Structure formats: C-alpha cells, structure tokens
C-alpha cells in the first residue's frame, strides 16, 4: 500500500468515482443502444400517381398489355405434320402471308388421281364420240338404201340401238369428266387449306410449333396455341377496375401508366373503350385453384409509341382520373344506401 497516499480510502474516494464513471458509461451505452425506428425511403421507385393526379381524385387499377387486335391464336383447318414453318416470333407479317404448311402428300396424290380420272374421262368421251360417229354413219348408210329388201329390218334396229348407246356413253363420259373435275377442285381446295395464312397484318408473338410436329384441329388439348399473333402497333392495355370504383372512373380521360418494376417510366395512355361486361377478376397468381369473387370492369387504353418499354403480357399499374371530387367524396357505400328519389336528384344535378 506504499504506492497510495496516506489517508487513501477506497470506499470514500474510489467508489464514488467508479459510480460516476459507471453512470456516464451507462448513459452512453443506453444512448447508443436506442433502436433506430426512423422511416426510410424505398430503395426502388414504387408506382405512384404523378403530376395533377397526385393531388386529385383518382382510381387505380392493375392490368396487362395486349395487342390492339387482342391475341389471335392461329389454328389449322386440317390435322397433319408440319412441313414448313415460314415465320418466327417477332416477325411482322402482312395479311395473307403464309405462316406454315401442313404435309400435303395425301391430298396431292388424290389430286393426281382426280387428274388421271379427268384424262380417263376425256379419253372415254373421245371413244364415245368416235363410237357415236361410227354408229351414226352406219345408220345413215342404212337409211340411204332405198330398197327395203336390201337391208334387213333387224340390221336397221341394231344400228339405231348402237347410235343411241353411243350417245348415252358420251353423256356418261361427260358426267364422269365433271365428277373428276369436281374431285380435282376439292383436292385443290384442301391443298389450299393445308397452307395456313395470316388472317391480318400484325406481329408474331409466339411460335409453339416446329416442322415435323403434328398439329390437330383440336388444338392439342391443354397445349399452347400453335402461333399467337396480334397487331402490336399500337399496343393496348386492359385495366381492371374494382366494381366498387366503376362509377368513379372518368371515362375518356387518359390514364397514367407505368410498367411493373419501372415505376419511374410513366406514360399517358389514351382511352379506347370500356368493356360492356363486368367480369370476375382474373388473378395473376398462376394458381389453378383460384377462387375470387371480386368483379372488375375492364377498360382499354391505347399506349403511345414507346421503345420497348411495354411488352405484350406485361403487368402495368395505372392511375385514372376520377370524376369530380364531389362524387368521390360521396363514396360508393353512401350512394347505394340513399333512396331512389335522392339518387334521381343527384343525377339531375350532374
């Protein structure tokens, strides 16, 4: 204890100092340990209404991008093996352009058969004509003979019979020719049906077939459509509006639209039409067992020309202006609760 001053006291001098230092340490620890519960801004831009819409009444909806012609699933008129595929996804095609052809060997051989039948019928027409000519000449010869005793009566009858038989043969051969030509015609039609052509101008969006695959008229059960196409110039979007919000939507006003994941890139889409039918909402959860009782009104908007910002099938978020603030504040619940008279008055007011 020689190191310490003479009247050193642990309890009188050191303990209070330890206590004070301890309190300071504790205060610092407590201050630093307080949890951070500040709000932070999202890392990525969420979809938000911009411009005027931000401060005014609006209706929000989610939807899908689709071609302005809607999606066209190309089918085939006749089943068979694909022999030639002329398009690939992303191609722009004109109306009537060949998309793919189905194996036509069977039809071609039946066309050949019909052609052979035509030739055969033509030959038999020739033969019948020759026979008729011969028979007529024979008959004429007999008829020229004045002397009745020179030609037997039975000879004449035979010649007359031969002449009319030759006539009938000619008629038969002619109708055979017609039949064969009709067969050839239908074979040519079938041949045409084996070539699938674009029903309209548009973009090929998906090709799910390859040469050598079998296509059937049933569409292959659950399998994907053979070729999907649609007019993508311009693109439309189909926005689902909750049935409770239908009356608030200002029909005809342009919508502010942004694709999922790029909420910063907003465009103005012009109104096209509202579907006349309110349908159950299709949930985009890909679940087979989806049961949803929400109904939605689908409203179509036309997207402006953007360079690959929107693609067919993409999900979008949209904000649509609502009718005047007054209607918005009334709220759907109140409106339905009101009696018929009041509703009519309101209608007049508007």
């Amino acid at each position, binding site marked *: 204890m020689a190191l310490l001053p003479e009247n050193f006291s642990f309890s009188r001098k050191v303990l209070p100092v330890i206590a004070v230092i301890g309190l300071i*340490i504790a205060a610092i620890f407590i201050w630093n340990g307080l949890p951070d519960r500040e709000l932070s801004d999202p890392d990525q831009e969420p979809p938000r209404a911009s411009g005027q819409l931000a401060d005014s009444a609006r209706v929000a909806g989610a939807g899908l991008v689709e071609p302005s012609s809607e999606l066209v699933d190309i089918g085939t008129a006749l089943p068979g093996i694909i022999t030639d595929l002329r398009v690939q996804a992303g191609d722009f095609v004109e109306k009537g352009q060949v998309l793919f052809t189905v194996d036509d060997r069977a039809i071609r051989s039946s066309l050949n058969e019909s052609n052979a039948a035509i030739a055969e019928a033509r030959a038999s027409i020739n033969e019948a004509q020759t026979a008729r000519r011969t028979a007529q000449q024979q008959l004429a010869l007999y008829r020229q003979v004045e002397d009745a005793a020179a030609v037997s009566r039975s000879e004449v009858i035979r010649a007359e019979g031969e002449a009319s038989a030759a006539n009938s043969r000619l008629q038969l051969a002619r109708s055979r020719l017609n039949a064969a030509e009709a067969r050839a015609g239908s074979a040519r039609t079938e041949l045409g049906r084996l070539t699938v052509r674009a029903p309209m101008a548009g973009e090929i969006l998906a090709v799910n077939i390859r040469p050598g695959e079998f296509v059937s008229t049933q569409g292959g059960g659950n399998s994907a459509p053979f070729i999907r196409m649609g007019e993508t110039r311009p693109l439309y979007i189909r926005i689902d509006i909750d049935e409770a919000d239908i009356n608030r939507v200002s029909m005809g006003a342009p919508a502010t639209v942004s694709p999922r994941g790029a909420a910063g890139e907003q465009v103005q889409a012009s109104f096209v039409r509202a579907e006349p039918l309110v349908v159950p909402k299709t949930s985009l959860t890909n679940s087979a067992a989806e049961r949803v009782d929400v109904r939605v009104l689908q409203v179509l908007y036309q997207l402006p020309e953007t360079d690959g910002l929107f693609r067919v099938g993409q999900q979008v978020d949209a904000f649509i202006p609502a009718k005047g603030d007054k209607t918005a504040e009334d709220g759907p619940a109140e409106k339905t609760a009101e009696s018929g008279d009041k509703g009519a008055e309101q209608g007049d007011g508007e």
Partner: protein
Amino acid sequence: MLWIAIRMLTGDKQKFYGLLFGIAFSTLLITQQLTIFVNLVERGASGVYNVTEADVWVMDEVSRTTEVNFAMPSTALDKVRGVTGVDWAVPHLRAVASVRTKDGDLEGVEIIGVDDATLIGLPPSMIEGSKSVLFQPDSVIIDDVGTTRMFEGGISPVGERLELNDQRAVIRGVADTIPSFTSQVALYTKYSQALRYVPGSRNRLSFVLVGTSDGVSSEELAARISEKTGLKALPREKLAQNGIDFIMENTGIPLNFGITVILGFIVGVAIVGLTFSLFIRDNIKQFGALKAIGVTNRKIAGMVAAQAFMVGMIGYGLGVLGTVAFIYSFSGDPTFKGFYIPWQVPLISLVAMVLIIVLTGWIALRGVMKTEPAAVFR
C-alpha cells in the same frame, strides 16, 4: 461537517457495503427486469418496426396486429392507391406455413411476401447476401434468429433447400431483423412467390403498405383511407402499439414482471431500511456528542442526507452499470437480439431509489432528531 458524515458512513465497512449492496441490487433488479419487460412486449411490434418504409398500414377491419390478420381481396390495393394523399401503396402478405427441412423436420414459419417490383417490406439491412437475391427464382430470405433455430451448429443456411406447400424454396440470404414475440422463423419472399408458398384461401392480401405524400400526416391519411375504402388503416406507431397491447392483454408477462419489479422495490426498502436504521442507531452516540457540542438538528439532517446521497449515488451507479453489463454481455445471444435499455427505465429506477432512500432516511432521522445530547453517556 459533511466530510465527518461521510467518514462516519464509511467507518463501518460492513454496514456501508451492506447499504451499497441493497441499493445496487434493487436498482439492478428493477432496471434489468423493466428492460427485459419492455423489450419482450415490444417484440409484439417487431413486425411493424422491421418494415422501415411504410407510414401507414392498411388491413381488414378485423385484423389486430401484424401476426393476427385477416386477408383482403386483391383489389383492396387498387382502392388504396386511388385515395388522394397516398404516395405509393404496395401489397404485403403475412401468413403462417409449415416448412419441411432437408432432414424432413417440420417447422412452423411465417411467410412474409414483399412487393415484387420494389421489395418494400424487407428489413432494412442484410447479414448475408443482398436484397436482390429475391429476383432469382424460388428465392427466400431467412431472418437471422430463425437461422439459429432451423440450422443448429452455426452452419450458413444460404443455399439450403426447403419444401413449402409442395414447392421448392432456396434460402439465398439472411436478413438482420428483430425477431417476433414467438421467435418464429420468418421467410421473406416476393409477393407472387408467397402466394404459392401459403396454402390457398380465397383472399390472400394481408396488408397494404402505404407511403404518404408530402404535406399529409400519417394519422390524417389513415383516417382518410379508412373513410374512403372501408378498410382499417393505421399509422405505423398505432399498429406497433396494437402489437404491444395484444401481448399485454394475452400473456401473463405484465403481471410477472410487475411482481418482480415490486419485489425489487421491497427488497431495496427492506435491506436499505434495516441497514440504515441499524447504522444510525449504532451512531446515535456520535450524533448525541455532536448535539452536545451544539450542532443543530438542521445540520444533522444535512449530514444524514449527505450519507444517504453518497450511498444512493454509488449504489444506483453500480446497479445501472450492472444492467448495462448484463444487456451487453447477452447481446450476442439470439434470445436477446435487439434488446436495448429504454432511457426511461433508469429514470424510473432512479425515482424508486430516491423513494427508498428518502423513506428509510426519514425513518432513521426521526430517531436522531429525538436524541438528547445525554445519549452520549448512555
């Protein structure tokens, strides 16, 4: 004169340390128990505090907390987005599911589905991996406390495969979160993915998280959303409070900790009171002598107050230091993850200490006041 009082106090080492122990112990008991109590019940709000972006939470009218919720139809999101003052709104799914681990064990987990595009709803920081791993197929992010429960022995869970509702899930990250009250394993995934992981019912959307526009307070906006959509909208703090209240109402925790805090107080009063009284009684002769040389009652009261202050300050300081040491040394334990000492707690225990000392000091002082100078001769 006060120095004499201090010397008097520290003269009897046993009694002095007895007093210190009493004060320090009861401070420690009260502070530490209150701290654990506050942190435990705040676990009920951890679901809210783990999401740092949302000002307002929108839910079904019957939903009570982040865990006790009832799903809404999916168009609720669009309804909320249509309300003026809503800057942005994103879907949020919270549901309980069972997970099969690689060993075949079954574990109850909480599936938290965050917005697909913006990932709003994820905890702010990650321990392993980055938030963007959720963009990979079948990805989930596990919470750090859940990791210790599902993967014992400190193995990194990243890359582990799980089976959820017959679907494959791969852990690709570990998030830094405050665990829930039940410390249930939390798996964060994208909303669309969460729909596949949670066994289906008709409606799936548990919450809509809302950011307020500038110039609108969250209370105002919550009221507006409730009015316009008919859904229940709560500001962040309100929902957090609901979570805390839920635990207070449905568990015995407040009662249990309340009893311990009261016991701490009683122990403090008993030990300190008895020791202080004994100490004063032992020194009654000295006080008598002081009185005999003409020291007034006022001065003596000042001396006793100085003694009480000395004991109280040292004891309280050591007690608080003990609590800090306790919280600090257990901060690595997953059970105590995120525990902190609210600044109000040491103040509460300070008030309790002052009460104890004033009470016992006053009782002891009464004896001294009545002392006659003649006591020195007895």
